[in-house]
């Protein structure tokens, strides 16, 4: 630094055009105008094209009566509902399928990935055979395989397998009794919420205690006790305000209760089994990325192999596992759109399919559909990034 630079000389002001700040603002403004102009142009162009071709446009169709049935819906829906409602129904069907698929694929994938590294030759070989088979057969074929395997293996409604009391399995689905909540059930709901809150604080406390004193606490058993005990207590107090709607064979099919349709089962199997084969490889790579010295060190300290895996290896492996895992989750969600092939009413099948076909409003429907997939993908990414940051090893 120059000695007398603490008194800034009145800078010869750069010409207006050469001022970097003004330039920056100028370019940004130009870019912004360009973006807005393109957006406006595309919008105008589209409306004009649609009008010229005599194709209906606008989002008003979302309020029109749909008129078609949807076989499975998580929220109330009937033929009198609107296309907008049909959109929600199909979106929820996509979400539940993806969610269940992600959970199952993760569990299966972790087990197989660990098995792949097992010292037991047979287990390791079986795991690699699994991976090679399911990773290399096109997913659509696997979906058809499971669908027709499920349909063929199961009996017609009149010959249903009676699994437990009131639970029936046939080629129309798995029928289970559905709970009907009576008066006073809200207390039970509160008890369940309370139980979860209690467990959350228990776990926190136990961690702290172990960090401070080294003493372990039987968190798992106590948590299970709370989670079952509190709601049970509430049930007893309120006098079991639940009755069951038990499915019954009436005419062609079972009526009443809840049903999981075979299309859902087939897709769930296919998506989780297929994605698990990729997750298994990711898990294997993650575990192998942790230096073997860590295992040896843990064993030398007399730590059991299962605990070594859980507390020493996996936490370090997760750093390598989580990022590629997110993209598998995204793949699974997007692959769930193959469901259209076997009549599972998810977003692409119902909304970008039937609704598009009945209304002919391709532009609006495709925009909404793409927007939804984008939003789901971003949410999954955000969650995984958050999780990744949370588990990232804090270097001490």
């Amino acid at each position: 630094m120059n000695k007398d630079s603490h008194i800034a000389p009145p800078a010869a002001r750069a010409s207006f055009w050469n001022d970097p700040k003004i330039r920056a603002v100028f370019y940004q403004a130009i870019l912004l105008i360009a973006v807005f102009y393109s957006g406006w142009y595309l919008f105008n162009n589209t409306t004009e094209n649609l009008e010229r071709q005599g194709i209906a446009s606008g989002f008003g169709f979302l309020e029109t009566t749909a008129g078609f049935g949807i076989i499975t819906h998580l929220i109330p829906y009937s033929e009198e509902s609107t296309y907008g409602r049909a959109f929600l129904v199909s979106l929820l069907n996509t979400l539940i399928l993806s969610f269940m698929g992600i959970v199952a694929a993760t569990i299966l994938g972790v087990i197989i990935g660990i098995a792949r590294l097992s010292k037991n030759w047979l287990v390791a070989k079986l795991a690699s055979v699994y991976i090679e088979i399911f990773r290399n057969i096109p997913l659509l074929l696997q979906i058809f395989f499971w669908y027709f395997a499920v349909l063929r293996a199961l009996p017609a409604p009149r010959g249903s397998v009676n699994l437990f009391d009131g639970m029936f399995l046939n080629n129309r689905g798995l029928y289970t009794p559905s709970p009907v909540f009576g008066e006073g059930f809200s207390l039970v709901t509160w008890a369940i919420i309370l139980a979860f809150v209690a467990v959350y604080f228990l776990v926190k406390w136990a961690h702290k205690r172990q960090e401070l004193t080294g003493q372990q606490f039987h968190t798992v058993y106590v948590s299970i006790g709370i989670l079952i005990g509190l709601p049970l207590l509430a049930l007893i107090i309120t006098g079991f305000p639940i009755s069951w709607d038990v499915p019954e064979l009436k005419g062609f099919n079972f009526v009443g209760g809840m049903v999981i349709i075979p299309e859902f089962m087939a897709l769930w199997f296919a998506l989780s089994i297929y994605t698990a084969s990729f997750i298994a490889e990711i898990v294997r790579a993650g575990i192998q990325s942790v230096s073997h010295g860590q295992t040896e060190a843990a064993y030398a300290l007399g730590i059991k192999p299962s605990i070594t895996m859980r507390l020493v290896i996996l936490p370090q492996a997760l750093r390598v596992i989580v990022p590629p895992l997110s993209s598998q989750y995204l793949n699974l969600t997007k692959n769930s759109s193959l469901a259209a092939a076997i009549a599972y009413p998810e977003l692409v099948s119902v909304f970008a399919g039937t609704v598009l076909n009945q209304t002919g409003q391709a532009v609006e429907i495709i925009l909404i559909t793409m927007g939804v997939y984008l939003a789901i993908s971003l949410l999954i990414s955000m969650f995984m990034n958050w999780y990744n940051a949370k588990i990232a090893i804090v270097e001490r």
Partner: protein
Amino acid sequence: MKKFTSTVMLTSALVLAAGQANAATLDDVKAKGFLQCGVSQGLPGFSNFDDKGNWSGVDVDVCRAVSSAIFGNANQVKYTPLSAKERFTALQSGEIDVLSRNTTWTATRDTALGLNFTGVNYYDGQGFMVRKDLGVKKASELSGAAVCTNSGTTTELNVSDYFRSNGMDYKLVAFEKADEVVAAYDAGRCDVYTTDQSGLYAQRIKLKDPSAHIVLPDVISKEPLGPVVRQGDDQWFNLVKWSLFCMVDAEEMGISSKNVASKMSSSNPGVKRLLGKEGNFGKNLGVSNSWCGDIVKNVGNYGESFARNLSVAPLNIKRGKNALWSEGGLQYAPPIR
């Protein structure tokens, strides 16, 4: 997924394409030298292909008729098999020139999709097929049934209307492709298979044991099936429309592929106009004056096409409503004059 891609293509075309007048489809077809015709993915009697990849059926004959009118030759056609869901976007996006695929003429399709129906080549109605051993004799006994069908069809909507208005319960299982409906129904997923009655007869052949299934007598809807073109190209609309009228008029006048050569010397003014010996009908349509004669020579009249494709085993469909108006049916074409 393929359908999704073509829909996305349509969307981006609509978003990006700068304003341009509707292209003259006839000029395009003449320039490329063939007609691109959208058909089903295999519906015996309507549009179906044999093991050599040759297409046949009454819907295919419409394509061949249009090709004859333009090129004097029925074989300048390329076929695009389409599922029920894919068909309209394929036409809107210009992937095909004409859609001839057992498609029901409805108000929405005619007015909101930017399309025009050019006529009716088969009058149909929706029916139900069930396993014989269910012991069902009529549709009103179907309450509570699981019903398999194609998605993106009028079928899907009619069946809801029918069951609801009769206070009956049902479970609708809607597949994208017809072959999947057949497979799922055959595997016992549903009690009932519903679609156009013609479709039921045609699809029944594909079942493992066709004789174990019956088509119920009830007809629950009107399904006028016909060819479709894009809206806004009147010349093309006229040509496709009159190609079908030509076949019906020819039957009415007793002109067939067998006798068309000898009819060329007929002195009957109606026959002379139809065969292009008199008048400028071909020229007005933008094709050669022998257009209708070529259609009859290459494809046959409506009755011949019907007999060749539908009235043969194993389909054995009777003319019924599709008889000429002069024989108590609904097939009626305006005169060529």
